């Protein structure tokens, strides 16, 4: 009752020098992932002559594109200190849905409903948006923690996928999706362009719009956001829908990119997307980070996955190495948060 205020009294000069230290500390979250990226790139460039080539940079960009599209929406969610575990399943079911509404070759044994391309895309988008709305409803209206709500949605979306394809594989998607997913323009794959545009859009929304500010404020201090008269539930609900729609777009392009639509096709994208966002330095506790961080995280992950294929090590060991590097990045994330919290005191 008396002790806490006495610390706030001392004079300004101590605060001045502390402020510089605090600034450096607070930037830890952005500096650390960037250093990781430079270190990994340098390492693989030295270890393998085939790594640092124009062609391979193109490979890495293409390889991270689907993850990047999904990670845009996930960044919004994690900035709000929530989580979405249903991203990969929603990507999968949306990709399957767009193929389901497209006329397949006669040998594909799926009882599908062929529609015009635009209708198929629209229905697929509506599907992922509705699944996102269900997540939003569970989280905000019913009050189920996002971890559990989206865990259930993960299963639900996988279930819808299973019912649509029934163990079969579909190949055809609407022309627009096929182009965006697998064609190139002037040597640059469309999917890279789409990913870049979506990341840019995400960045603009988060940085320059009122909604973006609200996302950061809700993540930074949810109670204060509520007592400032923000509609916290509306904001949380919106980010869940944004996440689902980004996942859906990633899923449609992914299906075109891979050339097929089938069950469990996107399973690895759940961890990859979460890892990209968090490794990049966006705080799991909300309020800190952004699309810039996610981009760095995507490249850390892309360089790591790609680079390990270029060096000659036991392919079974690679999985472990990947895990250890991700763990190191997460430790830095939590540690940076603590440094910053101390700096703010």
């Amino acid at each position, binding site marked *: 009752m008396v002790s806490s205020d006495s610390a706030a009294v001392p004079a300004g000069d101590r605060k001045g020098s502390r402020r510089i230290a605090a600034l450096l500390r607070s930037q830890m979250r952005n500096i650390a992932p960037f250093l990781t990226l430079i270190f990994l790139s340098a390492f693989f460039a030295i270890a393998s002559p085939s790594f640092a080539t124009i062609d391979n940079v193109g490979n890495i960009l293409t390889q991270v594109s689907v993850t990047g599209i999904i990670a845009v929406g996930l960044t919004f969610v994690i900035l709000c200190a929530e989580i979405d575990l249903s991203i990969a399943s929603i990507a999968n079911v949306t990709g399957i849905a767009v193929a389901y509404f497209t006329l397949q070759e006669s040998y594909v044994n799926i009882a599908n409903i062929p529609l015009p391309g635009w209708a198929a895309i629209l229905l697929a988008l509506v599907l992922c948006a509705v699944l996102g709305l269900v997540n939003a409803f569970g989280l905000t209206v019913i009050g189920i923690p996002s971890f559990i709500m989206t865990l259930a949605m993960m299963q639900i979306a996988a279930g819808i996928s299973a019912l649509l394809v029934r163990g079969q594989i579909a190949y055809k998607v609407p022309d627009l999706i096929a182009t965006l997913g697998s064609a190139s323009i002037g040597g640059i794959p469309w999917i890279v362009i789409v990913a870049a545009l979506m990341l840019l859009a995400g960045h603009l929304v988060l940085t320059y*719009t009122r909604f973006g500010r609200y996302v950061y404020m809700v993540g930074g201090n949810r109670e204060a956001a509520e007592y400032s008269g923000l509609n916290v539930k509306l904001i949380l609900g919106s980010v869940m829908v944004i996440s689902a729609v980004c996942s859906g777009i990633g899923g449609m392009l992914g299906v075109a990119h891979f050339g097929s639509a089938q069950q469990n096709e996107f399973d690895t994208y759940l961890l990859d997307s979460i890892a990209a966002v968090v490794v990049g330095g966006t705080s799991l506790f909300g309020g800190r980070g952004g699309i810039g961080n996610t981009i760095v995280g995507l490249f850390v992950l892309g360089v790591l996955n790609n680079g390990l294929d270029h060096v000659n090590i036991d392919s079974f060991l690679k999985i472990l190495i990947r895990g250890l590097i991700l763990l190191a990045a997460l430790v830095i994330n939590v540690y940076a948060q603590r440094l910053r919290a101390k700096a703010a005191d």
Partner: protein
Amino acid sequence: MPQGSSPLLELTQITKAFGGVEALRGIDFALSPGEIHGLVGENGAGKSTLMKIIAGVHPEFSGRFMLDGRETRFRSTRDARAAGIAMVHQELSVAPDLSVAENVFLGVQPTNALGFVQWRRMAREAGEQLSRFGIDVDPTARLGDLPIGLQQLIEIARVLFSGARIIILDEPTSALSPPEVERLFATLRRLRDAGSAIIFISHFIEDILGISDTVTVFRNGRKVMDTAAGATIKATLIEAMIGKGREALEETYTHDVALPAPSETPVVLEASGLSLARSLNDVSFQARAGEVLGVYGFMGCGQLELARILFGKLKPDRGQLQVAGETKAFGSTADARRAGIAFVPESRRAMLFHQEPVYKNVSISILDRISSLWLKPSQEREIAMRQVEQLQIRPSAVELDLGMLSGGNQQKVALAKWLTFPPRVLVLCEPTRGMDVGAKNDVIHIIRHLREQGLAIVVLSTEPETVLSLADRIIVLKRGAVVREFTGEKISKDRLLEAA
């Protein structure tokens, strides 16, 4: 004080400081077996600190601590418990997800030879103990499902039946209904007659006088009075608590403050029949334009809940709110804000974004007024700068993270959030708590200035000075109900305390 055979506990010249601020200055305190010892004093007078020393929470202090005639030092609450001292803290410390029986036997569950918990025995014994206390409840029920008052009674029961020789109760009655208080008192008397020593802290002077054998009054870390309960009256105790002629810097409000004649300005906010579970019971009032309505009451009287209903954070079970004559049912705090209600909660942490710059803290509540889609950071900074200058927030740098500001300046930022587009109604919880005199006066001036601009202001506080320095009209809340309204008359601190 009554000279019993020999004191169970005898403290001499106890002094305790927190970071250079003395919370206790040379306190002498004695407690005899079979005594109920009442303790009164204002917030921060040192009651809780002394009790925490006795219960081993604060092992560092100077002075002599004698238990059973031997000099003793507790290193922890464990030592104190082992010596037979138990304390019920002001804040509820139960495990809501455990059963009633598990809570009663928390940490001392009966086990069999193999170390397994004997659930049936535990439930049976918990039921017996509670019914001796007059509590008829299923011992297997989840504690969190019971009303708060009952939870508090069960926590008290746990301590009372722990076999402790010295029992400390810090504000045990704030959430209890009158019959529950009676039951508690009956049990306390029974324990006293069996030889236990009980220390009873309360803001409710009637309770203190009704149960205690001895009463000690604290003020500013000193013991100022020590008397047999039968030899004193409420007014004497209140006078001793407040003191006459305190430091000149702070207004003491021991003399009459004249409240202005009832205002004829339009009613902006009208609450009728607000009830919420066990927190609020049929609360009605009106707040008028250009008027400060003070809501005074002790901790736990329902103020916090009332404020949250006004800002749409809690939904009342019954009753309604009217803003400027329109009935409103707020679904969220955003609805309340749009209806023209602004809110500053009692905790700055719950209001501000410590890791964000000052200007973002100032603009958050008005962003939708200055931008529809794209942010306008330069305009935000301009607005923030204007507020920083007007409210004399120091340092006057809007880019600085809010966490770098002192508490008083943070409180001004919390007010600044609402001032660019003034609301119709401003609801303030504890607007000056924990602030130094200078910052306090600044905030008081800001609020008075807003009143002149025609805002209806509701100030809720547990500090009589805050209410007396600001309010034009005062309602007193007690156990969730309005028990008194002061309007157009002279009032002083002791009359306010007496009403609550």
